[in-house]
């Protein structure tokens, strides 16, 4: 053994990727009859992820040296960046990890009430989705990002189709090819960027972009533009987002709820790459594409709000609410104003939690109409998987108590307030933070900002109108309908997510401070690049000659 | 043209001859694919490339590498072996399949019944 070794705690950075991956794979070794074992194992995994995410948040929030925040860089294979792949945990990544873990815990718990039985190998698919999400948030390498995008997409294809059924298959028929095309665009963009800059490391990229000469810069921008379209498809920008409401509406509740964070991955990447490559220090490429994001985001808000109003089904409404949320974030990034972005980050957390809670809730509310499991299936024993379909709907899925409807109603009101940006939950603060940043921008308030403000307000109003309309239709009108049966493990996730929103309101100060610091660090790409590239391999001198572990000479 | 390996002249000439001959035979076979009038005749064409064409080029390759590395290098034999073993599989399956198809569709190209065995 030579050289210094990595402190144990630094390996935490890889765990959000590795843990669900390993557990997911491990569960493939056991057949589906060992359901309890798998339930416990997967629950333990998401809880562990939650703990890891919280630890990481605490760690990045600690001042290190002369700075008030820490960036952890984890060089995979101990190859120094920019050559090897690195994982980078900064505030933004840590926050996204936490959001993923929260959503993961809530939706998994919810799914364990019954949805996990709707198709084979649910746990593995679900945990691998978490792997993909966490990897996409952590990675500091452009192509590795592609790989993790593909993981999360592949898992999402499986999960959208989970439970089968015509509507889901039909939705998959749109969702999959569009994302495949987007993935192709992703690859083209990455290839062009590599061809121009000769690197795949994001931090390295931010260092190289300002130095590019005229022609190279134009080509680089072309590559970035194609890449941007790929991300915008995933982020759901109008007019690239028509697949989204249909898909979200078709997916089963816990999956739709988990998907609340899927568009945020696109937004996250845009935020990260846009500010790294085209931020204030990008020379002639500064602010490249900002207007596209700004106006595209606003168009998305408008379209989302229209869709929210036009939706007859609650799930579809949720899908459009996702669009509103995406559009808001994109437009906020397009402003290029760090105060707006810190508000937007707060908004991102809030709206993700809220939409997730909403999708879970809608399923509980509309439980009466739930479609039965349909198909009979025959399987050969060869796969070690016995046939077991989701049980009949007659099965006791929960106790019908009169208060259920009141609880559901209360949760629905909370969701409405969150999505429309009304008090008392964090939706109001999120909207206020963004509005306040927009209105308090130095100098005259530009007309485009006014447009954004008006759109924010109108989308809130539209959401309010639509959600009251739908809420009244489902919760207040049907006096004769059966009271939905709800299990505690279904109610707890909803309550938990809403509670988090409430906590974000009460603890608005610390949360907002975190977001502010996050936004500020995004504005210092040079700092980020220095942190990432400056971190050498664990043992000194690997990049020179010696191998970390004494090996024979070849 | 990028440079070809530096062989002794005799080897270069031999290899060249073999390779060109193999390529020519293969080309003739493939032209047959184009010129022969019906499907069953065309079935005979590819075996030119698969046998003589492949053989010539493989031998050329073997000579080339053996000379280059000054030791017998005959692993290309494997390619010849597998091509010989597998091409017939395809062609047999294909011939029978098209016979079936032609018969079902009543095409003139295929006899309606198997011809009576020719006895000596």
């Amino acid at each position: 053994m030579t050289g210094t070794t990595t402190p144990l705690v630094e390996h935490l950075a890889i765990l959000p990727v590795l843990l669900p991956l390993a557990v997911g794979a491990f569960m493939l070794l056991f057949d589906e009859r060992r359901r309890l074992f798998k339930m416990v194992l997967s629950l333990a995994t998401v809880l562990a992820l939650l703990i890891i995410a919280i630890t990481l948040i605490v760690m990045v929030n600690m001042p290190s040296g002369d700075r008030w925040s820490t960036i952890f860089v984890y060089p995979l294979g101990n190859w120094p960046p920019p050559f090897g792949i690195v994982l980078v945990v900064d505030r933004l990544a840590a926050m996204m990890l936490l959001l993923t873990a929260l959503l993961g815990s809530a939706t998994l718990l919810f799914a364990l009430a019954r949805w996990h039985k709707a198709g084979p190998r649910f746990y593995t698919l679900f945990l691998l989705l978490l792997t993909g999400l966490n990897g996409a948030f952590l990675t500091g390498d452009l192509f590795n990002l592609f790989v993790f995008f593909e993981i999360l997409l592949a898992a999402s294809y499986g999960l959208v189709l989970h439970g089968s059924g015509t509507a889901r298959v039909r939705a998959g028929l749109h969702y999959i090819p569009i994302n495949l095309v987007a993935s192709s665009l992703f690859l083209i963009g990455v290839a062009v960027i590599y061809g121009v800059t000769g690197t795949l490391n994001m931090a390295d990229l931010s260092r190289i972009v300002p130095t590019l000469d005229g022609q190279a810069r134009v080509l680089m921008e072309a590559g970035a533009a194609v890449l941007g379209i790929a991300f915008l498809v995933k982020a759901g920008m109008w007019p690239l987002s028509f697949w989204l409401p249909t898909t979200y509406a078709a997916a089963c509740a816990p999956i739709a709820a988990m998907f609340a964070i899927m568009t945020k991955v696109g937004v996250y990447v845009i935020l990260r790459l846009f500010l790294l490559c085209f931020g204030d220090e990008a020379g002639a490429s500064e602010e490249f594409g900002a207007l596209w994001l700004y106006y595209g985001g606003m168009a998305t808000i408008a379209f989302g709000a229209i869709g929210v109003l036009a939706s007859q089904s609650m799930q579809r409404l949720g899908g459009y609410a996702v669009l509103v949320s995406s559009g808001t974030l994109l437009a906020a990034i397009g402003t290029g104003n760090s105060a707006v972005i810190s508000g937007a980050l707060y908004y991102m957390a809030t709206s993700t939690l809220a939409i997730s809670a909403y999708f879970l809730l809608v399923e509980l509310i509309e439980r009466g109409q739930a479609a039965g499991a349909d198909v009979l299936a025959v399987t050969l024993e060869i796969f070690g998987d016995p046939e077991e379909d989701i049980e009949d709907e007659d099965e006791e899925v929960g106790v019908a108590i009169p208060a259920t409807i009141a609880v559901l109603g209360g949760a629905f009101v909370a969701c409405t307030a969150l999505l429309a940006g009304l008090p008392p939950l964090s939706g109001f603060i999120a909207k206020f933070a963004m509005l306040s940043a927009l209105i308090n921008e130095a100098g005259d308030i530009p007309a485009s900002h006014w447009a954004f403000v008006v759109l924010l307000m109108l989308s809130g109003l539209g959401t309010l109108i639509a959600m009251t309309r739908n809420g009244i239709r489902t919760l207040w009108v049907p006096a004769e309908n059966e009271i939905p049966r709800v299990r505690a493990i279904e109610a707890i996730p909803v309550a938990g997510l809403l509670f988090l929103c409430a906590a974000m309101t009460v603890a608005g100060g610390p949360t907002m401070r975190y977001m502010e610091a996050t936004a500020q660090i995004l504005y210092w790409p040079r700092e980020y690049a220095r942190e990432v590239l400056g971190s050498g391999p664990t043992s000194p001198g690997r990049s020179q000659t010696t191998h970390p572990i004494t090996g024979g000479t070849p | 043209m990028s440079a070809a390996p530096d062989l002794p002249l005799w080897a270069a000439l031999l290899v060249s001859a073999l390779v060109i001959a193999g390529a020519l035979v293969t080309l003739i076979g493939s032209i047959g694919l184009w010129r022969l009038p019906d499907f069953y005749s065309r079935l005979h064409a590819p075996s030119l490339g698969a046998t003589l064409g492949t053989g010539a080029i493989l031998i050329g390759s073997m000579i080339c590498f053996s000379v280059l590395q000054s030791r017998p290098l005959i692993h290309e034999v494997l390619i010849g072996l597998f091509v010989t073993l597998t091409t017939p599989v395809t062609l047999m399956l294909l011939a029978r399949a098209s016979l079936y198809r032609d018969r079902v569709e009543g095409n003139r190209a295929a006899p309606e019944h198997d011809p009576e065995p020719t006895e000596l």
Partner: protein
Amino acid sequence: MSNGTLLLVALALPFLGSIAAGFLPTHARNAAAVLAGSVAVAGAGIVVFLYAGIADGEPVRLWLPWLPMLGLDFTLRLDGLAWLFAILIFGIGALVVLYARYYMSREDPVPRFFSFLLAFMGSMIGIVASGNLVQLVFFWELTSLFSFLLIGYWHHSATARDGARMALTVTGMGGLCLLIGVLLIGRIVGSYDVDQVLEARDLIVDSSLYEPALVLILLGAFTKSAQFPFHFWLPHAMAAPTPVSAYLHSATMVKAGIFLLMRLWPVMAGTDAWFYLVVPAGLVTLLIGAFIAIFQQDLKGLLAYSTISHLGLITLLLGLGSPLAAVAAVFHTLNHAIFKASLFMAAGIIDHETGTRDLRKLSGLYRYMPFTATLAMVAAAAMAGVPLLNGFISKEMFFAEAVAEHTGSLLDDSLPYWATLAGVFSVTYSLRFILGVFFGPPPVGLAHRPHEPAHWMRFPIELLVLICLMIGIVPSLTVGPVLATAVSGLLESAPPYYSLALWHGFTLPLLMSFIALAGGVLLYVALRRYLESGIEGPPLLRDFKGQRIFEKLLVTISWQWARAAEAALGTRHLQPQMRIVVALAVAAALSPFIVNGAVGAGGLPGSPVAPAFALLWAVGIACALSAAYQAKYHRFAALVLVGGAGLVTCVTFIWLSAPDLAVTQLLVEIVTTVLLLLGLRWLPKRIENVYPSRPPLKVLVRRCIDLSISCSLGGLMAFLAYCLMTRPVPDTVSRFFVERAYTEGGGRNIVNVILVDFRGFDTMGEIVVLCLAALTIFALLRRFRPAPESIAAPEQQRVQNAYDEAEPDRSPGDTVTDYMLIPRLIMNWLFPVIAVFAVYLFIRGHDLPGGGFAAGITLSIAFVVQYMASGTRWVEDHLRVLPLRWMGIGVLTSAATGAGSWWFGYPFLTSHFQYLDIPFIGKVPAASALLFDLGVFFLVVGATVLILIALAHQSLRSSRAAQAAEGGD
């Protein structure tokens, strides 16, 4: 406990109570009422306790940090004005709780009612006690939310639902405007803190943002306070239980708008803009409300419109901008809250006892409930402005202000006439209320005989009417100090001189009061016949229903237009979406060129063209184009053609120095062909030629568009590829890899070393993708339902089986057995051969083309060959494949290899290699990366086999299903 903390307790109590009430059992109405009542009483007690300090001119303050970076801290500030409102909120709240205890029926889930009511109470306190304007908006929106829940409390009734929704929509909209207005104020002042805002009149009034801020804030206030043209929601909110009407729609919520106007009065009032925006709104509301109130047939409707009118009066007073008018506004707010709450409660009692609120059915109730009737009459008299009652004094002050000179404009000068007219109307509707309900013949057709209500239900009215009288008779003793405190809170300065005396001599206002009383009586007499005819609504404005217009507008915009816009701006079809994605990608990629000018090819000379390569690509291009042309009707041909294009790609890879790619691409190509054929089995024959002659023009145009989109993307890619291939090389990171692949990665095949070591993390991800795809396919096929046309065995098999059956010396299945006889033998023997080749590819991968992935695919091809040769059943009888296990083991092996480096203290996937010296054998490279690659190998075998076999199993399943169906017949 400091005063600030006490205030916080007063604010928190209702919310805590609300939560507690929410947890009470559904029918615990006494417990809930006691809880709510004690909260209200305690709150009132605290507020009263706080009076002393406030009266000295020092507001109670509390500051807690919340969102300091946004200028939003939790700030409480209770000055005189707020105190007055707070005491109204708690005091009337307590009475309403008492009343509601008797009003609400036993069947209602009462705890929920009290829970909402308490939450609403807390929100109201929040508004008035806010020391920060954003916080005020926060509570403001909360009142909208809780009032929605309260109005919709009886949600089984459609009117309640509609009323609730309308109230929420209108007030919610106003709240959003208010938020922006407040944000603008914050921008002007630099703070949302009420204390600071109140000191910044000059800043605000002189700012260019003053007008927009004013408009937005007024929108908020007017919607909440039901000012014209937003007044229409209030009458519809009367579908709420009467306690709610009494509380929200007379005493508190509607006064929130008034409170806001008062709060900002010192810094925003007194300008022309203020005057011309506020006064007309107030005036129109005053008149229209009063006028419509006269013609209401619903008791609560009458009260609702009268409320609107009184709110207009107060707004008008505030609009005038003079301190004295503000005093009058404060005073009237108090008075109106008191008499209107009691009137609503009286109306509720009448409704409760008779079962109706329709004035056409009610009559002569005095004889059944004289006590209640008397109380109602006193309260109504106060509403009409009869002397010796509180309404008289404030109305007198209003008349005085109407007469006074403010701006000298025509509007200002005409005010006395309008004020008198409004007075006339108010007398008329008050008379109608009293005479219509309590006098006249006994009512007919009532469900049961009315009688006096429970005493405690009437008690709140008694108390309120008593207060009316006390204020009306001895104003300066009773209300004087409170009013003074409130006014000084409002004005932020010493109040002007005003007198609360009943008698000021024979003044113009007195004359106006007299005219109003007399005129009101006359008007009532004149309208009596008309009113008794039972026509609903006022004569002139009957057809003009704000609510109807609003609903129509709302439905049109928020539903019909939204649906149309969604359809117009979106699509649910795949093709347009694909077009947009591709076209936008092209546009986005071209935009930098448009902005910065075109970029030419780089300076590199480029490699010389090999003729064979050019010819090869001519073939490749022909394949691709024909595949594009044939894929619709000739699926099989398209498959072959794509295979051709793939092979050209492979040869290109080899030609351009990428043997690994060629090997992998070839193997994948083979598997994909088999896969697509397996799939083709389940795609029924296509109906040929949809357009027998010529496709319609629309289709042709669409094809032209598609053609141009596809050509533009192709052109773009070609262009980018050419530009980049001919550009001088940047120093890429691959230098590092090339130099270290052997010395530090222990492999000669750099690509493989990158895959398993330098960028092993990518490979790990990639196998996870493959694993996921396989799992998804497996899951989907478990529930696969084939197309009906393809359930039966393929036509070929049926024909051949029929033939075998017909021939005497053959049995079904012989054809296939004969067919496969020799190929099968060869293919069986190839299995170990291919497997050995797979092992070879795996072992040599680190140094030569090959590697785990290629090896895995090769082995799975070996399996597939067996399946093709011998059939599913036979293979599975002979070879036991557990693909899911293989997959699990594969991923775990890779992950465990990666994690192994932890043990040595290095990051994940840190590789280790060594040359082992084994006796007899010599030096053997042993890299941990090989173990990693082994995982890849396992996974690829498992996943590929799972995919292919799961698909192949469908034939068995459907034949089994077909047999089962036959057996069933």
